[in-house]
């Protein structure tokens, strides 16, 4: 069968107006960093510099935390829940109104395909604010006591894989519960967070309730370590999560951590194979595999191994890698040169350790950071590619014979964020779901998210849950 040819279908970037320089958003104003430091954010699909962004130093962190404290004490803490709700509803509406601009901006800054930023990220961002807006005036019914209190100032540090979505996961519940926030987006993807600052202004959110400070790891560490914060929320790598857990030791700061994963995606011989193959592809190639809950370890029952692998290779051959703004693109750019180097290094380790590497024939653009969809077979549990989080479009395939072996292998990891199960047998789904040590189990589906659905990890994938009623706990005293 000849491959389908697709004409380019680029989304227009005209809806986005990127400024050459961005300051920090503190106390309702954009301000420059005290010591004038800045860094550049680049388009990972072209390596072109998009903007110069201020780097917050300790003095800026302090200023932001003080602004958040003032807003908490004077305005946001005392405000009735019904009014907080209205601000959050306003924000949700403005996100919907500016959805196209935000989707394009996210794809430009992050490298993710517009198909995903438009159809997944931005609709979920709006949904998160809508959903938590409705909690703001219903907190006494949430099951955390009759008079649940906010914690105060929340320090929030988020990653680069879902810049605006992770912002909404952090800010929406924090504000709903009556906290104020200082949020630090990742240094490679600050632009949509800064656009969100403008959304806060349009919503006339009181100054200081949301503060956004940009910078790299040092800024994050200064924020997390600041004496004036009552709560630390972090999404990112397990290593940084460990450092944060150490740094808050001996303090009264409440902490939630959403960390790495090495999810098993388990395919039984009675699974609907075509659906399973779609799920495998979605599990590992969604968002270039830059997903902490990505299904990066495929466990296939031996009896259907050949069939699954044949169809998987065929399906992978139809994935289109390239311009994130093209509506036909399935796999966009790797977010940064640094991340690309890590993916390459682990992929080389995989080959050096004896696994077989395969990628469909695909041409990668000359500029930008790219990695083709990649499949490793002949992988054992001892291989580093089966143990370490790669955070890229790289799938390792292992096999099993019995359900018990599948459980054993799936759980054989220090992580416990997510897992997938593919089988037609309902009783087996429930049996597997009971035994998999993971915070999210997707049965006959993968990578689904919803503001009403608790998400978070077991074991070294962190602690606390985001989403739903459970997500409120992170921001309430108790």
């Amino acid at each position: 069968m000849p491959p389908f040819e697709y004409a380019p279908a680029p989304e227009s970037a005209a809806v986005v107006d990127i400024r050459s320089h961005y300051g920090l958003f503190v106390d309702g104003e954009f301000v420059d960093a005290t010591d004038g430091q800045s860094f550049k954010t680049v388009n990972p699909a072209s390596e072109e510099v998009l903007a110069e962004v201020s780097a917050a130093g300790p003095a800026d962190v302090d200023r932001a935390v003080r602004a958040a404290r003032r807003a908490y004490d004077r305005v946001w803490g005392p405000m009735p829940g019904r009014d907080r709700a209205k601000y959050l509803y306003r924000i949700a509406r403005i996100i919907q109104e500016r959805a196209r601009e935000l989707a394009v901006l996210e794809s430009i800054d992050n490298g993710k395909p517009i198909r995903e930023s438009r159809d997944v990220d931005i609709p979920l961002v709006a949904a998160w604010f809508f959903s938590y807006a409705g909690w703001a005036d219903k907190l006494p019914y949430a099951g955390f006591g009759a008079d649940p209190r906010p914690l105060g100032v929340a320090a929030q540090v988020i990653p680069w894989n879902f810049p605006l979505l992770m912002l909404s996961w952090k800010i929406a519940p924090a504000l709903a519960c009556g906290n104020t926030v200082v949020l630090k987006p990742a240094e490679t993807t600050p632009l949509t967070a800064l656009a969100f600052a403008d959304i806060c202004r349009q919503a006339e959110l009181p100054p200081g309730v949301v503060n956004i400070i940009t910078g790299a790891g040092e800024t994050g560490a200064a924020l997390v370590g600041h004496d004036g914060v009552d709560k630390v929320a972090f999404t990112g790598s397990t290593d940084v999560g460990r450092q944060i857990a150490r740094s808050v030791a001996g303090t009264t700061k409440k902490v939630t951590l959403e960390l790495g994963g090495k999810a098993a995606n388990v395919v039984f011989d009675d699974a609907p194979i075509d659906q399973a193959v779609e799920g495998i592809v979605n599990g590992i190639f969604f968002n270039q595999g830059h997903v902490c809950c990505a299904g990066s370890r495929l466990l296939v029952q031996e009896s259907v191994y050949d069939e699954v692998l044949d169809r998987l290779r065929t399906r992978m051959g139809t994935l289109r890698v390239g311009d994130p703004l093209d509506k036909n693109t399935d796999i966009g750019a790797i977010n940064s040169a640094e991340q690309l180097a890590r993916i390459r290094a682990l992929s080389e380790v995989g080959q050096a350790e004896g696994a077989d590497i395969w990628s469909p024939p695909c041409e990668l653009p000359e500029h930008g950071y790219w990695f083709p969809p990649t499949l490793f077979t002949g992988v054992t549990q001892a291989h580093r590619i089966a143990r370490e989080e790669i955070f890229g479009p790289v799938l390792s395939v292992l096999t099993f014979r019995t359900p018990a072996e599948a459980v054993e292998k799936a759980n054989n990891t220090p992580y416990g964020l997510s897992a997938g199960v593919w089988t037609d047998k309902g009783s087996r789904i429930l049996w597997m779901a009971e035994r998999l040590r993971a915070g999210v189990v997707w049965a006959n589906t993968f990578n689904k998210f919803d503001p009403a659905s608790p998400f978070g990890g077991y074991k070294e994938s962190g602690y606390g849950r985001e989403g739903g009623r459970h997500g409120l706990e992170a921001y309430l005293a108790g």
Partner: protein
Amino acid sequence: MPAERKPARPEPRVGVRKTYKLYIGGAFPRSESGRSYVVEDAEGGFLANAALASRKDARDAVSAAAKAGPGWSARTAYNRGQILYRIAEMLEGRRDQFTTEVAAGEGVPRKAADVVVSAAIDRWVWYAGWADKITQVLGSSNQVAAPYFDFSVPEPTGTVAVVAPQDSSLLGLVSVVAPAIVSGNTVVVLAAETRPLPAVTLTEVLATSDLPGGVVNLLTGRVAEVAPWLASHMEVKAIDLTGVTDAELATDLERSAADNLKRVVRPTTGADWNVDPGLDRLRAFLETKTVWHPVGI
């Protein structure tokens, strides 16, 4: 055949003293280190030599707890509730002994000690009732904006290490152990350092209450010596620092716990163990698992 000689007057009976041991994997070993330490009453009088647990004892206890975990968490909630209730029954039957030990250790009159023992018994009954209810209260069916059946259930975290409260040697101890095990976790608990005797006696109750060996393992000894091994042990998934009174040590323990991202309950001083415990301690050792499945025909 010589006639039996009768003493001129009855001698006061020489009591049989109790040897206080550890409780690991359902057995009562002495410390492998062969060490013991003196436990005094509130006036400084000698009460007993308790086992001084070592690093090896701590590791044995963690192994036992980890081994017991899958079986205990797989029991039905109904069965776990029954067993916790059985603990209350056995404790009720031995209340005199506990009253004596609490009175001696905490330096309170028998009457006050009796109130403490009653509260400890009632606490087991309270938690026993939670076994089959906590899932309904903390779990949920989630309405997502797509055709999926999506539900969340609480599940045990695994092996929990507990530094028991130092002041309340029985009620405090029960208040930290019961909420951890009722949901299917297994524990290694370090008893109050200077008042460990009611805890050891409680293990005799546990051993005769249908509680599987290894679900609760008790160490007696020095917090500063044993707790660091528990905090750094990779098999321990959560640590309750309630009874750590040294702030610097507590910080060190919390830092060690970060190595495998243990769930940490920070120290509490001056807690009132008589008030309604609420759900915080139950929630502290539970994970939430969310399961998605498509809905369709």
